[in-house]
């Protein structure tokens, strides 16, 4: 066979595989029907005693797919997922786009919501999240689950005219939340987790800090150190060295370490939002300079970059997005959906909760109008999701959730404290 033909075959195969992998085709959990008003009913619901009907999430997660109730036949609840499968967000959005349809199938197995099936449609944001959003609006989505970065979420917001509830499931970026335009985080933001980290450090008697930042105000890699610095110094701590680096790029910190070594005595707390692989390299270089007793703290990037799998990450303290309880129904759901073994299992409850929060909005407003649903989401209070209690009422879309502080011990996260 000529190489030209072989190359052509390879390219064709790659394109077919890409099309399959992108889930551009429907990841539909049930059959589709026309959009219509929502109905009241009892399936998969319970009264939470707070004046509105709540979802029985425990019952849904415990559903047995081999022994389902009668298939729901009402008008479907349509969940639109615009997901980023690129390197930046794919580690969370790829498994996230798998777990949500799976949980939707559990909802439907459990009889649906008020007899209504839940449908999930996934579109890859690619280079045009606005187009993906428009396609899902045309499909009839009632609300959206979006990627963790503003470059996709803002076009989604604009395409929907700010009328659709958008849950940035995996994000902690504070500027992304915007209740006025119905965009919500599902967990704490960077200010919350870094402030909690500073409070924890001070409570351990650590009063000298070394900070690595990408620059003041830089989303995530700068905002987290900014917040840590503010809370740490406000609590009486001192920043003995502040260094800059390139996020997800640098692994040679020679010149920074030379400077740190000239001012540090090795007893400091180190804080950064750097990726785990960067901080393990930095730690080795610090220890090479004799700085052996530094306490290493970081934000949830460590969740994302496999710090527990890195031998150099032993002892690191960080703030994971959620804590998975071993043997729980939730863990079983993740296992059954194939996402427990993914790169980011701790993020999956946030995707599941995003879907449930949108459904809760539908239940609360008793409507099918996206703007009405979003308005109801805005007023959600005390929602008990798989990732903890979530309240949007009175916030700008950032739920005031407690921040778990964990330490990597024998390759696993061990809870040290919960702050907030």
């Amino acid at each position, binding site marked *: 066979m000529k*190489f*030209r033909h072989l*190359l052509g075959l390879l*390219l064709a195969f*790659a394109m077919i*595989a*890409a099309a399959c*992998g992108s889930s551009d085709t429907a990841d539909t959990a049930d059959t589709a029907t026309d959009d219509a008003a929502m109905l009241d009913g009892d399936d998969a619901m319970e009264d939470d005693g707070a004046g509105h009907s709540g979802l029985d999430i425990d019952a849904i997660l415990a559903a047995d797919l081999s022994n389902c109730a009668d298939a729901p036949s009402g008008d479907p609840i349509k969940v639109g997922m615009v997901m980023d*499968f*690129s*390197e*930046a*967000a*794919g*580690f969370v959005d*790829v498994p996230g786009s798998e777990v949500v349809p799976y949980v939707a199938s559990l909802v439907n197995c459990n009889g649906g919501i008020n007899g209504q099936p839940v449908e999930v449609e996934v579109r890859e944001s690619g280079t045009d999240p606005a187009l993906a959003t428009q396609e899902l609006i045309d499909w009839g989505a009632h609300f959206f689950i979006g990627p963790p970065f503003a470059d996709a979420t803002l076009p989604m917001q604009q395409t929907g005219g700010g009328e659709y509830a958008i849950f940035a499931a995996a994000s902690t970026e504070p500027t992304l939340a915007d209740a006025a335009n119905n965009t919500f985080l599902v967990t704490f933001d960077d200010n919350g987790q870094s402030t909690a980290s500073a409070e924890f450090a001070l409570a351990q008697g650590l009063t000298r800090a070394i900070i690595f930042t*990408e*620059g003041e105000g830089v989303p995530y890699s700068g905002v987290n150190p900014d917040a840590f610095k503010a809370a740490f110094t406000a609590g009486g701590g001192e920043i003995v060295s*502040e*260094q*800059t*680096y*390139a996020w997800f*790029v640098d*692994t*040679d910190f*020679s*010149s*920074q370490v*030379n*400077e740190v*070594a*000239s001012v540090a005595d090795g007893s400091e707390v180190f804080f950064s939002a750097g*990726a*785990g*692989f960067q901080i*393990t*390299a930095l730690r*080795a*270089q610090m*220890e*090479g*300079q*004799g700085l052996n007793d530094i306490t290493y703290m970081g934000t949830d990037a460590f969740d*994302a*970059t*496999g710090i527990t*799998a*890195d*031998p*150099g990450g032993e002892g690191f303290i960080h703030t994971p997005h959620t804590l998975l309880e071993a043997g729980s129904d939730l863990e079983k759901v993740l296992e059954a959906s194939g996402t427990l073994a993914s*790169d*980011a299992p701790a993020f999956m409850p946030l995707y599941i909760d995003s879907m449930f929060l949108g459904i809760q909005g539908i239940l609360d407003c008793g409507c099918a109008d996206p703007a009405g649903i979003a308005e109801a989401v805005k007023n959600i209070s005390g929602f008990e999701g798989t990732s903890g209690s979530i309240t949007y009422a009175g916030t700008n879309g950032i739920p005031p959730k407690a921040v778990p502080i964990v330490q990597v011990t024998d390759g696993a996260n061990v809870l040290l404290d919960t702050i907030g």
Partner: protein
Amino acid sequence: MAELLQNLIDGLGRGSIYALLALGVAVVFGIMHLLNFAHGELITIPGYLTYWAFNNGWSWWTVVPLIIVSAVISSLLIERVAFSRVRGAKDFTMLLTSFGVHFIVSAGFLLYIGAAVKPYPRPGWFADTISVGSLNIEVFDLVVIGVTAVVLAATTWLLQRTMFGLALRAAAADFDTARLMGVNSDSVIRGAFALSGLLAGIAGVFWIMREGQVTPTAGINPMLQGVLAALIGGLGSLRGAVLGGLVLGLAEVLLRSWLPVGIQNLTTGFVFVMIALLFIFRPGGLLSVPQVERV
């Protein structure tokens, strides 16, 4: 003074890796006029093999040859599958082909391996230091500098004292005349890609050791540094490529150290400003070579 010496050693260590990468870029450019933006894939592919090897119980003793051999094979495969198809085409076509190879390889890893960081252990000694007076010199830097010196000496011998080297230099000077004089073009080009892969593999050993992880786009940074260093030194000049690598490494470390705290994160920007200034005064790079137009 001590910090300056420390930074000089750190810069030479970093620059040595850039020099090996740049030399690989320059070897191929000299023969084909191809600025190979797929050069970084010779780090990405061995990077994933490293991740695989450690998950299967390999150690660095066996991973190092794996990295080097896989880089050479990858380089030859890329030449056979992609660049041999456009051999003789315009430079711009080959440039686009190299971009295409980069994107296809990255997309392949993204689709079939995943987007997440894949970590593996660094060698235990990589951050060890040797104290010399007030200096704490990283063993890693010393090893990199030493290995680079040996590799450059061996490459010089290969190019100056062997028939292959003679053919390569003749082809680099004037490819068409070299062919008329009996130089086998296929052999020279494959040899150039094999040498380029070997140099990338050796650089890759150190790059991969320091990174401790691999992602689908892991090759972008080493590719950019290699291409930049080759441009600084003067495209087509092998000695210039080495010089460019060392200059780039030193510039990065020294600028990072000298810039005021508030603007240290602009180090890369300042490096590019310096490169722009260099090209204003020496458009051909530090050691420019006369360009022979292919006909």
